[in-house]
């Protein structure tokens, strides 16, 4: 590949990281204001207009807090864990297309720049793989901090994520079948010409969504950190920036899975009934993508402050006895429909 491609790739990667990091403070603010709204209170409103600068204050607080490493902890792993959590969260995004892409001419050579870091043949599988590895951070954190609450958290998250991957994967296969390709752009492309999968496979979408909640350890499935049972779960012992990394990882995960949901079920960056290409098309696409993702992010917040936490056994039962069968059902439907050419 040429230096041009390399540079473009680097730029795109930088954009991704930047945007994801940038989202975090905003999301923190949205979360806190949103929760306040839902719980009918004011929420942070001192720092800056509408408390917009509150996240900054939080960040500062994190930075200046004392960084404690428990004496009985497994130092190496203890330090490693937050990174292991954040990394997959960031990298997952790089196979998700967030715009139609544009044609640019650079030094007389025409290039096509797709709004996606890596268009991989096996995009969906890559996503599943990275999500799967995401659990290590939590587990290792739980293990290394050598604290029974943390360990319980780690245990739970490992079991939980393995269980919900199953449902998620099955649901996604339902989408892959009609598209007949593992490339996410292909999925988007398909939805531009057909109904969005949220309409053709509502059951699959529901399964995927719930599994997504579980994968990101968000309420009502935040077993690993269930603050009322295990003080703060896997990150009980963590403080200051290390904790902040977990924090960022969680939000990054939220963004990623929202983006994934959008791409798989809501037509990605495509806007129905609108055909535009070139710069306007790109802008329109990216705008649409951002809008949809924002909606899902709000959904995350909304759900978190509305629903109570599940009990662990209930969680498992839901995963294995409800979601997996549902996903299988959806798979059956989708394969039949594909065969018959209904969707």
């Amino acid at each position, binding site marked *: *590949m040429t230096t041009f*491609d390399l540079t473009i*790739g680097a730029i795109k990667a930088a954009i991704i990281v930047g945007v994801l990091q940038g989202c975090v403070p905003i999301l923190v603010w949205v979360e806190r204001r949103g929760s306040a709204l839902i719980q009918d209170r004011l929420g942070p409103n001192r720092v800056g207009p509408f408390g917009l600068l509150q996240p900054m204050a939080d960040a500062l607080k994190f930075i200046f807090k004392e960084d404690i490493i428990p004496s009985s902890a497994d130092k190496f792993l203890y330090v490693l864990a937050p990174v292991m959590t954040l990394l997959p969260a960031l990298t997952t995004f790089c196979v998700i297309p967030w715009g*139609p*892409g544009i044609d640019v001419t650079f030094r007389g050579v025409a290039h*096509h720049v*797709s709004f996606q870091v*890596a*268009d*991989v*043949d*096996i995009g969906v599988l890559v996503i599943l793989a990275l999500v799967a590895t995401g659990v290590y951070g939590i587990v290792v954190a739980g293990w290394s901090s050598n604290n029974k609450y943390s360990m319980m958290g780690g245990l739970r998250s490992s079991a939980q994520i393995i269980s919900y991957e199953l449902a998620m994967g099955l649901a996604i296969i339902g989408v892959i079948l009609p598209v007949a390709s593992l*490339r996410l*752009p*292909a999925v988007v*492309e398909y939805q531009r010409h057909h109904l969005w999968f949220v309409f053709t496979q509502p059951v699959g979408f529901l399964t995927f969504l719930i599994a997504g909640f579980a994968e990101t350890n968000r309420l009502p499935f935040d077993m690993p950190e269930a603050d009322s049972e295990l003080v703060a779960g896997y990150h009980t012992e963590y403080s200051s920036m290390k904790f902040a990394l977990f924090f960022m990882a969680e939000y990054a995960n939220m963004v990623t899975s929202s983006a994934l949901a959008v791409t798989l079920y809501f037509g990605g960056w495509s806007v129905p009934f609108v055909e535009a*290409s070139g710069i306007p098309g790109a802008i329109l696409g990216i705008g649409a993508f951002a809008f949809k993702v924002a909606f899902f992010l709000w959904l995350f917040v909304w759900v978190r402050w509305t629903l109570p936490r599940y009990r662990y056994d209930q969680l498992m039962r839901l995963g294995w006895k409800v979601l997996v069968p549902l996903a299988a059902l959806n798979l059956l439907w989708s394969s039949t429909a594909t065969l018959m050419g209904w969707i």
Partner: protein
Amino acid sequence: MMIPAATPNFGPAAEPMGVPLGAYLLLSAALFSIGLFGVLSRRNAIALFLSIELMLNSANLAFLSFGRALGNLNGQVSVFFVIAVAAAEAAVGLAIMVTVFRTKETINVDKLDILRW
């Protein structure tokens, strides 16, 4: 509109391998013997299992490199099966280990020697 051609295409490279088959096989052999060493020398049942997984993977590597060299997909399919079976093996093995631990309070395989003369 045409789907843009994938930029860094992870698909199969059409050109013959830049790395000789022998190198892959050597790597696989090395991994295999390391795993074997683990199996022979570790007393912790879990470590034993890990070593076995390692050996399995060396086999997979050999499969894939041969398949690549011969230019057919049987290697990949075999690996597919190996992985599936490995999953089954791990599940059952760990289950056994858990039950053993419940009764004998240890997973040191040298302690589990009641099945002798």
